């Protein structure tokens, strides 16, 4: 146990001393956070929930694939693992320490993001915070394991970079982490259901937007957990301490084995389409959640009074406020000003 504790403590210290780790784990996703917040009008409605889901998954991808994968190859190439080889430890503490360290480094970022969302953009604290943290934890564990498998089957730094990019880029662009899934044609949506990152995006969005718990997302959570277990086991079996120990190219197929739970989930989704449906529901809910200020409207108020030229503030699909005249400055109420093409009556 001392070995595990010592290695985890060391890994965390080393990670925090690396500028690249700080950049890719904190600064880089934070840049995306503010850019997406701007693009999705996060101050209005549920846009921030989408931003958080996207940025969180970008962070998990970087943490798992680059943090675990690249570092393991670097240590092998630099003859650091060779030093560990002469000690009585097996690869297990090194692999477990890497996984736990990834989680320890990432979790503060999750809280920072929720804090920014709450204090800067007025997002309420999520009701299913516990489920979100569990889901993010299995997400990191699953992606760290994928990273460690990539390191285990790569024979050089160059090869690892190619392999990591081959996994990273489709997950980054096709999972909804950078482009919303609503933009995708139906055939591409089918492909996205084979990517672990897609389930992370929809899972976190559903937990934030619809207060879903971990039970409602049991399938992807179980698949990620299975990925972690299978990934760590194969990474242990294929572990190499020295750069001179090369692995045959066919060993790269082990990556497919690790991703088998998601291959099964993708095939299952081709049949049930439940996750695609969930994506559509979330998209509808997102559109409804926007805040509008409808101006130049004829408003019939519930008590029978009529405002001939008024404004209605709609928040989360419900009338929040009725004004005479043009109403407040839209920016002051975080709303988009809408002018109907023809004058209509609004019951309010």
């Amino acid at each position, binding site marked *: 146990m001392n070995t595990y504790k010592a290695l985890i403590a060391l890994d965390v*210290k080393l990670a925090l001393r690396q500028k690249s780790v700080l950049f890719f784990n904190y600064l880089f996703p934070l840049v995306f956070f503010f850019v997406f917040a701007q693009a999705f009008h996060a101050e209005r409605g549920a846009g921030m929930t989408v931003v958080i889901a996207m940025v969180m998954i970008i962070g998990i991808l970087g943490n798992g694939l680059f943090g675990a994968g690249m570092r393991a190859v670097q240590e092998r190439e*630099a003859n*650091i693992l060779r*030093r560990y080889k*002469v*000690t*009585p*430890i097996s690869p297990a503490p090194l692999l477990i320490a890497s996984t736990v360290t990834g989680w320890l480094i990432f979790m503060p970022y999750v809280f920072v993001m929720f804090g920014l969302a709450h204090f800067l953009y007025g997002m309420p604290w999520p009701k299913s915070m516990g489920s979100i943290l569990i889901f993010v934890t299995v997400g990191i564990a699953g992606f760290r394991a994928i990273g460690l498998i990539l390191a285990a089957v790569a024979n050089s730094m160059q090869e690892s970079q190619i392999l990591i990019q081959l996994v990273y880029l489709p997950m980054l662009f096709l999972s909804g982490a950078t482009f919303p899934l609503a933009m995708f044609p139906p055939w591409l949506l089918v492909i996205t259901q084979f990517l672990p990152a897609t389930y992370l995006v929809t899972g976190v969005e559903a937990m934030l937007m619809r207060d879903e718990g971990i039970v409602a997302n049991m399938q992807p959570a179980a698949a990620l957990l299975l990925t972690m277990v299978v990934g760590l086991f194969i990474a242990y079996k294929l572990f190499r301490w020295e750069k001179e120990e090369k692995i045959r190219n066919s060993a790269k197929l082990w990556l497919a084995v690790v991703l088998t739970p998601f291959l099964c989930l993708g095939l299952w989704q081709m049949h049930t389409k439940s996750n695609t449906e969930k994506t559509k529901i979330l998209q509808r809910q997102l559109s409804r959640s926007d805040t509008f200020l409808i101006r130049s409207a004829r408003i019939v108020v519930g008590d029978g009074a009529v405002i001939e030229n008024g404004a209605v503030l709609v928040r989360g699909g419900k009338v929040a406020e009725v004004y005479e005249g043009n109403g407040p400055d839209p920016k002051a109420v975080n709303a988009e000003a809408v002018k109907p093409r023809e004058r209509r009556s609004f019951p309010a």
Partner: protein
Amino acid sequence: MPSNRVAISVQDLKKSYGDVHAVKGIDFEIQTGEVFGLLGPNGAGKTTTVEILEGLRPRSSGQVAVLGFDPDKQRQSLKDRIGVCLQATNLPEKIRVREALQVFSSFYSRHADLNQLLRRLQLEEKREAFYGTLSGGQKQRLALALALVNDPQLIFLDEPTTGLDPQVRVEIHSLLEELKQEHRTILMTTHYIEEAERLCDRVAIVDEGKIIALDTPSRLQQQSRNASSIVVTCTKPLPANRPAWAEVTQSALDSTGRTLTVHSRRPAATLVDLVKWIDQQGLELTDVHLKQPTLEDVFIELTGKSLRE
């Protein structure tokens, strides 16, 4: 079955990589408390042999026992008991000296006093320094400290001073002498003859996967067919005609005619004859030098190669 006094026992050890036979059947025993050197050029099979004994590589055939353990079958137990200083290893640039010792110490069931170890390896002032900021000598001292964190009775040193400047090499030699005085068993490989001569109780000369000589450094020197040489220099040129001294195998004058080199099987007797002859010639001696054959001479004689090949 090796006795308790035997720390390492190797019988007919062979190791092949496909068609390449790196170790072709070697035998030796190392007694507890002995410093044993493996000497040989690059590719001779030294490192492969040592790595088999450390449990890092499986052997192809032969019998091996290290502290009573079979390195192929009881790898973890063996690694827990030995200390190893490898060639060409590294640590992360941003690890502190103290942290490296603490984390490596956590891997073992026995622990040395880390503060004492830092003092002994003259790393006390550098305890908070990052590995990346250490000099080559300091890195090597840290590598030795890491090999001692479990207070091992058997230590493997694979070329512990290669690439270090002479000053640092001397410092490392002093430390190894201290370890020797503590009756720890040491198996070391080296390129440096003076290192083997100074530190090793016995030396095995390895070439092309085989041990071609094994004895104490002094006996190996004595066994050498190469005779000792006496070099004398006079104020004026020596005569070209020289008497046929007993036991002299060869003699030659340099281009100035003032320096004479004489090879002899009995250098002490020859030196007396030589000084008498010079006196009879009415010449005055300015320098006399008696040179014993070195391990390097023995090595060259046995293998026909230089050690640094």
